[in-house]
């Protein structure tokens, strides 16, 4: 955990800020007290912006944690894909939290969650069309202008695709990064889940992402839901350890992107901090391998 971060020979990554290329942990309320009192050896923490929008105990606790750890703010409800535009009130609240916390990274999702003024409480899939691409880029630019910084945009897990989609999701995400200058938060578990659900090849997805734009990787557990007729669908529920297949895909991602700050996410039945740190240690070991591999490549 005391390892220095990336080699100075590696290119600066868009939007990375000063989060080290190490394994961090998603911080949820149940661990607030423990982090303040026991100072666990996590390299960095990521929190959901929406949980810190008011006053009182939660933001005060985050202020204290922020003094001791790098912190990333992860948004789940800005609705970057909303055709009706961003909710200015919500965006102002995001800006307020970002101003208060001064995080090392800010991220959001390639999805929508607001329609006709209602918040739909999930990361809903977009049709992969030129129209949607234009709208996502417009909204990302608006967020970046408002926050006066670049953000990372994350690929979601999806459970349906639209007939009129014309662009593969990996090309769509790469194009958002190219047009807006935003970075990419590559959620390896989400790639695996969506690839299984839609019959994509996960390696094709990884290969399409511009390595220099990838500023963070997410890892989490997912579940396998059995429908009738022995059909299955994978659900991104963040409720278990990272699956072996996802670890394997993560190693491939590191080989392609180099050492990248990596987060262990767990939101359903959040386990003790020790379990999260065990998962982070597995990621850290793989980052270390990638680092030495990358060093050889640079020396060659």
């Amino acid at each position, binding site marked *: 955990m005391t390892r220095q971060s990336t080699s100075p020979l590696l290119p600066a990554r868009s939007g990375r800020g000063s989060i080290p290329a190490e394994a961090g942990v998603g911080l949820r309320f149940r661990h607030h007290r423990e982090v303040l009192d026991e100072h666990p050896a996590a390299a960095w923490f990521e929190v959901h912006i*929406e949980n810190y929008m*008011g006053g*009182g105990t939660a933001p005060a606790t985050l202020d204290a944690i922020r003094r001791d750890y790098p912190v990333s703010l992860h948004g789940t409800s800005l*609705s970057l894909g909303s055709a009706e535009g961003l909710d200015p009130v919500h965006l102002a609240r995001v800006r307020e939290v970002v101003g208060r916390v001064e995080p090392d990274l800010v991220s959001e999702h390639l999805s929508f969650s607001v329609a*006709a003024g209602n918040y739909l409480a*999930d990361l809903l899939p977009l049709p992969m069309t030129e129209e*949607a691409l234009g709208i996502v880029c417009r909204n990302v630019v608006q967020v970046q202008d408002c926050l006066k910084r670049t953000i990372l945009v994350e690929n979601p897990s999806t*459970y349906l695709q*639209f007939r009129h989609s014309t662009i593969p999701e990996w090309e769509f995400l790469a194009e958002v990064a190219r047009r807006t200058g935003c970075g990419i938060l590559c959620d390896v578990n989400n790639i695996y889940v969506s690839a299984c659900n839609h*019959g994509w090849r996960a390696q094709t997805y990884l290969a399409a992402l511009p390595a220099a734009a990838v500023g963070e990787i997410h890892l989490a557990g997912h579940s396998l839901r059995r429908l009738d007729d022995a059909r299955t669908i994978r659900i991104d529920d963040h409720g278990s350890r990272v699956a072996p297949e996802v670890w394997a895909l993560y190693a491939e991602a590191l080989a392609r992107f180099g050492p990248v700050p990596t987060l262990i996410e767990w939101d359903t039945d959040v386990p003790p901090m020790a379990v999260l740190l065990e998962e982070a240690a597995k990621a850290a070991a793989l980052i270390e391998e990638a680092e030495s591999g990358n060093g050889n490549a640079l020396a060659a």
Partner: protein
Amino acid sequence: METATPSLLELQRAMRESLVVHDDHGVSAHVVPGGIDPAERLDIYRNTFASVLTTALRLSYPAVHRLVGAEFFEGAARIFIEAHPPTSACLDDYGEEFPGFLSDFEPAASLAYLPDVAALEWAVNRALHAPDVEPLDPLRLAALGEPERARVCLVPHPSLSLVRVDHPADLIWRAVLEEDHAALSAIDPGADSAWLFVQRLPTGVEIRRMSESAWSFTSALCTGRSLANALDEARDFDASALLADHLAAGRFVDFNLMQHPPDHTGNIP
């Protein structure tokens, strides 16, 4: 069969209908089946929508949840969510209409005190999440001249709520959350009005009972009546002492000066 390609706006509004009111007709024709019925795919998102919002309501209304039980709560929540989908992406804001919904909810009619407990829980939720605001420095008031002082209207701290209940909602709330069965069985849940004052303190949320007159005075201050007028109207208690207590406790954060002093009826012309 609908084959025309929808605009993104149309598709997103159709998804809203699918999730909120379970009407898939605008969206299912546009979904790739891929061996799974579009309705089953949409169910995954529908379930998340309902369960995330039910959890948000349960976190804001823990005493109501315990009083009615998980199954009843979930059933009520599903109906509420369909009628009142969130208009803010910050879920701490969600559920303000739940107490009113419960008071009209026929299956809960036998629990006459339930809407009062819910109203108190919403005030507690507000207190927990209200923004942090610096209290008003009483010296700013003291520095005003007499004519200005007659025009002062105080601005309450956003964590502060005044709740009037027709049942002992505060006693029920406390006993339920502390799982104090002895206390709960000792409460007469019948009609017994109480005037409650809810506020966030550094140590947690405080719920305090007030006399009707002290509550009315505080309520007048919180709803923008002039300080001079509220003091004039106060009867049967030491309003100046209560005002000093409010200010010392940081319950007001600012003041405005009315353009015109109130006339003898107390109305602002």
